[in-house]
């Protein structure tokens, strides 16, 4: 029964190597909440830009006629992981969690597991 602020704090505190997290409405590309980030990591800009990533993947799946849904999207950079988790809750249509991790400190499997838990706690 967390609120959005506690969910974001939870993500920053419980996930090793977390550099920033945002909850994004992908209809508009607007971040409904952000935590962390830095001068070199503007989470609002990242939120809007990654909306295009999600949309492109959904379109690709449509073209392939895949009867499936996206659970998460992982982007591996030289020094960071970017993890996008689409919220599947019945009321969470059109939202995703966006997590930036320092790849040296992060445990990817744990991070994915924690994001799944945080998503479930956002719901009843």
């Amino acid at each position, binding site marked *: *029964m*967390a*609120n*959005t602020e506690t*969910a974001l704090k939870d993500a920053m505190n419980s996930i090793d190597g977390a550099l920033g997290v945002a*909850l994004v*409405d*992908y*209809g*508009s*590309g*607007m971040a*409904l909440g952000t935590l962390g980030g830095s001068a070199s990591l503007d989470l609002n800009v990242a939120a*809007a830009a990654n909306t295009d990533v999600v*949309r492109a993947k*959904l*379109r690709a*799946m*449509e*073209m392939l*006629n*895949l*009867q499936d*849904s996206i659970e998460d999207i992982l982007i591996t950079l030289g020094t960071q992981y970017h993890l996008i988790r689409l919220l599947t*809750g*019945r*009321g*969470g*249509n*059109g*939202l995703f969690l966006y997590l930036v991790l320092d790849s040296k400190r992060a445990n990817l499997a744990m991070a994915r597991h924690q994001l799944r838990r945080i998503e479930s*706690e*956002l*719901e*009843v």
Partner: protein
Amino acid sequence: MTAVVTGGAVVTATLDRLVRERATGALHGRAGALYLADGALVHAESPVVPDVGWRLTASGRLSRESWEEAVTEGGPDHRAGSLLVERGRLSRGELELCHLSALFDAAYFVLSPLDGSQRAPDRFLRGARHWFGPVRPVPVAAVRREVRRRRGLLERAWPCPELDVSPVVPVPAPAPAPRAVRRSPSGAVLAAADGVRTPTQIAGALGRSAFATLLDVRRLAAAGLVRTPAPGTPPPRRARPAAPAARVPADAPEIFLLQRIRDALEAL
């Protein structure tokens, strides 16, 4: 266009003053209403935007009964939203996210009306509070920034404002269309395009964000999947979407009713 710009300047000046005064009340006009508490935006509504209740019930997240129960019991004390959380119908997070999405969606159409003849809100009902109750107040400056960003998004997607107010006409596919899965939001919009409904009417029917639907329609037009109307095409007379207004509790301050009364008095 000049009228829109002038209206925008007036509403900007009024909003600035209300923020400085840390005012509480509703700034309202034909394009909708912005509810402020202590100078921050706590609620917004527009006749062309599906409200929180419609979003939650159209998606199947809440039953119509749960929603009406919260409105009837919580509305008179301005706490319908909190009641949904207390009764265990929604988590606090879901309430916040759904309410914020609806707030920014409505604020866009209040501050950037689709129809140039709609006046920007110019009347302030001091002390008015919304029956939904405050959820997460948003600074007015952040809302303005977001409205500007959204205008830019539409412009960049396909610079044709006529699309926003015209019926969405799908372009017939040259080859037999593949049985698309329509998983993406724009797929759902395209499937709902019947050549009659405008983007905001489609948003109303689907219970989804009106702005996101405008953006999807612009992108569909850019991709050649929806017909682009000729520049300067006069918008057809727009019927108000059948959705939200009806779910307002009987004893809640009803802005649109007050407006109609005011207009009738002025016409005397």
